[in-house]
């Protein structure tokens, strides 16, 4: 078994598209269904990320949010799976891909 990092990305938008309360309720139900279904695989649901940030480079420090990026990092989770296919299966059930522009990047942890 290996560990995989799920990185959630979302489109950078001035204003979020309006959703009706029912749609949001449905998304909540999807989250729950996902958590239940893969409760063994999901080692750590992780956290969300605030839109602020800083980058340190040799040239100095830059403040976020990083307007040049079209996508924002929204959060992360850590999942256990036997291979990429299995990890992909977990990701496919995840409601974080509910809208166009949202994505999950899946990276295997090296285990150093």
């Amino acid at each position, binding site marked *: 078994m290996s560990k995989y990092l799920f990185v959630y990305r979302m489109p950078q938008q001035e204003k979020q598209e309006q959703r009706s309360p029912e749609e949001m309720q449905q998304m909540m139900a999807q989250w729950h269904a996902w958590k239940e279904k893969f409760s063994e695989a999901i080692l750590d*649901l992780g956290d969300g990320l605030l839109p602020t940030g800083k980058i340190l480079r040799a040239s100095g420090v830059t403040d976020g949010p990083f307007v040049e990026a079209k996508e924002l990092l929204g959060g992360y989770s850590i999942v256990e799976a036997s291979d990429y296919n299995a990890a992909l299966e977990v990701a496919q059930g995840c409601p974080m891909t509910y809208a166009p522009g949202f994505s999950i990047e899946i990276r295997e942890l090296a285990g150093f």
Partner: protein
Amino acid sequence: MNSPDSSSAEASKETSAGGVAEVTFRHEYGRIVSALVASFGTADVESIEDAAQAALMRALEVWPRKGVPEKPGAWLWVVARRAYIDERRKLGKLELRCEQAAGDRSHSHLDVDGSRARGETPTTFPDELGSPELQRLLLCCDESLPAKTQLVLALKILCGVSTRELALRLMTSADNVQKRLSRGRKALRQAFVASAGGKLPELSNSELGERVPALQHVLYLLFNEGYRSALADKPIRRELCEEAIRLTRELLQSALGNRPSSWALFALMHFHIAQFPAREAGGGAVVLLEEQDRALWEKPSIEAGLRYLQRAIAPEDFSPYHAEAAISAEHCVAERYEDTRWERIVELYELLEKAAPSPFHTLNRAIALSEWRGPEAGLSLLETLNPPSWLSGYYLWDATLGELHRKAGNAKRAVQHLRQAAEGAPTLAERELLEKRMASIKEA
């Protein structure tokens, strides 16, 4: 955040908190908007809607990870109020009163220039209309606005019905809904600004009373949206119906709203909701009245409806809701479809047409008439009707004509109309139903 060991404990905590099922986002949305309007007035309704939206989105991010908080309503309120204040501050429009209303502990410096918290007091209403949510709804029922705009305003602002859903429901474009919304918001803002000291003028009892019919209409449409949803994949939305019932109950509990027409509306809702299990039994597709298993009807709801209809009886105050409730009652008390007293229903549709003239009611009367006197009788009534273009282009018009022609044995015309209807059907479930009908004719 969660170590593997704590995740199961986290999960069980969540279940004990009731999970997601007990939090109704629509209900919370309405409550947040009501409360923000109460605190900050109607100067910027759009920011208030955004704040309610933001709070629910935040819940969506946090709750799956942390579990649903013990008091979800309070959690959402804190987040929404903060979002509203932040937004106003960003716009540079943060009035002192907002700080004050937000309960800022260090507000002593605010009094330095002597300005008191102007407009801190929300719009006040006489006690006759107790529920704050109803009061907020009444605010939208401003008679200086066209009825449709009042409706858009109330459904969007207080019930969170999306622009897309509203456009489908009101048979208009999303642009039109947007225009009505912005005009409505502007009127609310003007009323807020025009009133001295940033307070809305107190509405008198008679003014409030005059707004009750508009409020009833909003509740009726809210229920309808749930009963025959505009969402393609969800023909019934029970939560909207329950919200409408809850608000109507509050209306009945108020001195001003407790009137025969409100009871009739309440009865109507109960007759309809009694049929839900049977309507939904088709697994996603709506089951027609004719084909419903009446054993699935919820008897207690029907009995409640009959009781409420009894309370609605008032010869001097006959509303369209009376007629509609009486029609539903006739259906509900018939043991079998064949037992329906169609002559009585035809009569009631005539009364309904008198109380609220609409070719739509005539269409329904034609259906009842065809059950009573045969399809030809229904068809000849429709022939005398000169339908306005919105009706002749509406799928239910073709669906009815198709059905009556089918029963009269005119296969060709039946298929023609049913095809037209299927093309215009707003939900997948209804289209499937019409296509099924079409197929049954071809086979015969």
